[in-house]
C-alpha cells in the first residue's frame, strides 16, 4: 500500500490517455451513429457485421500487404546496414547511429513532402533515370510510392533493434564457428542469424505496426488512391461522421496488432538464450 503514491503519476497518465479513450472507442463501437456525428444510445452489433463486408476486408488485406512488404524490404536493407555498423570501431558506430536517427529531428510531414518532390513526374527520380537512359516512370500516387515513404520513415526502427542484438553478440562465437570449420557464410547462417532472431522480430514489429495504421503517407504519396486501414478509420470519423463504425475499425486494427505483439513476445521468449 505504501507504494501506491509512487505509481500515481504513471497510473494517472495511463488512465487519462489510455483507459478512458480506449473505453470510449470500445463503447462507441457498440452504439448507433448519430445523424450529424456523435452517437445515440442504442446498443447494436451491426458495426462489427459491417466489418465483414468485402469492401472493408479488402482494405484490411491491402493494408496488411503494404505493411508486410514495407517490413520485408526494411529487413533486407536494415540487416546489412546494422551488420556493417556493429562491425565498425566504437567511435564510428556512434556516428553511424546518429546518422541513422538524424532524420527524426526534422518534421515528419516535411520529409514526406520532400518525397513528393523526389518522386513526381519531373522530379529527381526521373531526372536520375533519364541520365542513365531509362524512361520516365510514374511512381507518385501509386503503392510503390506509399511503400517507399513508409520504408523511408520506419527504416531506423528496424536498424536500431538489429544493431542492438548484433553488437551484443559475443565476437568469440564467430571465431569459434570459424575454428570448427565454418566459412563466413555458414558462420553467419548458423550462429549470427539465429542469435539475432529476437532483434529481427522486434524490428519487424516496430516497422509493421506504424506502417499498418499509417494514414499520412498513403494520403500524401498514394494520392488517396491507395486506401489503407488508417485512412478508412480517419475518414469514418472525420468525413463520413460514422463514429461507431470508425471505432469498430479501430478495434479491429488493435486486435490485429495485439495478436502480432503476442506472437512476437512468444517467439522472442522461445529464442531467448539466457
Amino acid at each position, binding site marked *: 500500500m505504501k507504494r501506491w503514491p509512487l505509481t500515481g503519476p504513471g497510473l494517472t497518465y495511463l488512465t487519462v490517455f489510455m483507459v478512458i479513450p480506449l473505453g470510449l472507442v470500445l463503447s462507441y463501437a457498440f452504439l448507433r451513429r448519430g445523424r450529424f456525428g456523435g452517437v445515440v444510445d442504442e446498443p447494436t452489433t451491426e458495426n462489427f457485421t459491417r466489418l465483414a463486408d468485402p469492401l472493408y476486408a479488402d482494405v484490411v488485406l491491402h493494408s496488411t500487404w503494404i505493411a508486410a512488404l514495407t517490413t520485408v524490404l526494411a529487413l533486407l536493407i536494415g540487416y546489412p546496414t546494422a551488420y556493417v555498423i556493429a562491425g565498425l570501431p566504437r567511435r564510428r558506430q556512434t556516428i553511424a547511429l546518429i546518422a541513422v536517427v538524424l532524420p527524426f529531428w526534422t518534421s515528419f510531414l516535411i520529409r514526406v513532402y520532400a518525397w513528393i518532390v523526389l518522386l513526381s513526374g519531373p522530379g529527381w527520380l526521373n531526372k536520375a533515370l533519364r541520365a542513365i537512359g531509362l524512361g520516365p516512370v510514374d511512381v507518385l500516387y501509386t503503392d510503390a510510392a506509399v511503400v517507399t515513404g513508409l520504408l523511408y520513415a520506419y527504416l531506423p526502427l528496424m536498424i536500431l533493434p538489429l544493431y542492438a542484438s548484433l553488437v551484443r553478440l559475443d565476437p568469440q*562465437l564467430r571465431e569459434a564457428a570459424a575454428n570448427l570449420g565454418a566459412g563466413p557464410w555458414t558462420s553467419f547462417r548458423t550462429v549470427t542469424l539465429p542469435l539475432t532472431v529476437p532483434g529481427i522480430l522486434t524490428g519487424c514489429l516496430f516497422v509493421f505496426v506504424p506502417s499498418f495504421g499509417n494514414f499520412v503517407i498513403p494520403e500524401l504519396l498514394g494520392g488517396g488512391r491507395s486506401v489503407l486501414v488508417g485512412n478508412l478509420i480517419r475518414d469514418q470519423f472525420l468525413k463520413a461522421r460514422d463514429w461507431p463504425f470508425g471505432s469498430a475499425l479501430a478495434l479491429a486494427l488493435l486486435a490485429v496488432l495485439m495478436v502480432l505483439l503476442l506472437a512476437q513476445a512468444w517467439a522472442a521468449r522461445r529464442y531467448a538464450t539466457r
Partner: protein
Amino acid sequence: MIEIKGVSHRFGRTRALDDVSLDIGEGEFCALLGPSGCGKTTLLRILAGFETPDVGAVTLDREDLLSVPPHRRPVNLMFQSFALFPHMSVERNVAYGLERERLPRAAIRERVDAVLATVGLTAYARRKPHELSGGQRQRVALARAIVKRPRLLLLDEPLSALDKQVRAEMQLELKRLQHEVGITFLVVTHDQEEAMSLADRIAVMNAGRIEQTDAPVTLYERPRTTFVAGFVGANNLFPGPNGITAVRPERIRIRNRIGGGKGGNDNDGTVEGEGERLTGTVVDVSFHGGTSHLAVRVPGLDRPVLIAVQGPSRVTSGEQVSLSWPPDAAVHIPASIPASTPVSTPASPIEGEEP
C-alpha cells in the same frame, strides 16, 4: 610437427610478440606460461588463424599454416570463455564441427556420442549451455574441440574459469584425455602449477619473448634467466658481481646460531653462491601442514630470504640463525643474458587474465 619461426607481432605500438620460435613435437603436451600480457594468447590466436603475424613463419608438417584460413586449419581451440553456442544443445554444439565436414549423419551421431561419453556428459546431451555448471560447460568446450580430431589442440587458460576442486579433477582428466586421443596439446596459462602438472615441456614467456623452453623439472631446477627463476616457483635471488645466484627455498638449510655453536659473521653484504653461509634474523614463520615457510632477514639484502622446511619449524620468530646450501643448489644466472625484469623477484606468479 608445428614449427614457429621468428614470429613477431605488434598491436599499434605494443610489441606483443618479439622473434618467437618454438617447435612442438607430435603428441606432445606443451605449455606456454607467462604473466598477463606476455603475448602467449596472441601466439595462440596466430596458430588458430585469428591474427596474422607481422613477420615470421608457422608450418604444420612442413607446410605453411599462415596462408590457410582459420576454418580450414586442422587446429582446434578451446576458448577461455568456452564460447559455446548458446542457442544449441550440448550435442548440437559438439556436432557443429563435424557437420561442417559434411560427414554422414550416422557417423556424426556416433562420434558425438563417443566423445560425450569420454567427457562424461552423455546425460546432458540435450541441455542448453546455460543449464550447465561451469565444469560441465568446460567439458562441452573440450568435447567440441577434440571431436574433430585436430592435429593440434589449443587450450586457452583451460582451467581458469573453474573453482579449485573441479580444477584438480579436470587437470587429471585433461592429461588422461591427451594420452587417450594422442592429439598434440598446446595449453596457454599464467598459472605455473597448472603448466607444471600438465605439460611435458613449458615455454616461459615474458614481454613478447620466450625466455626458456624446457621440461618442468629442468625449468624448476635450472632456470636460465632471472625472470624464469622468479616466475617459476618461489626462489631466492642473490645478486653478485657477475650475475645472479638463485637458490630454491627448500634447498636452504637453517641452523640455530646459538645451538650450532658457530660464531662470527660470515656475511659481508655481498654474496657469492657456492657453499655460501649467511646469518640473519627470523622475521616470520608460517606452518602449512606438510611444510613450514620461514622468512629470514639478512643484513645487506633487500628482501628476506625464503626457506621451506619439512614439518613444523624448530626455530621461532626473532631467533638468530645461519643459512647454508649445498653447492649444487645454487643456480648461477650470468648477467649477460638480458634481464627483462628487475632483479630480485622471489615472487609468486602474477594473477590475472589476459587483456
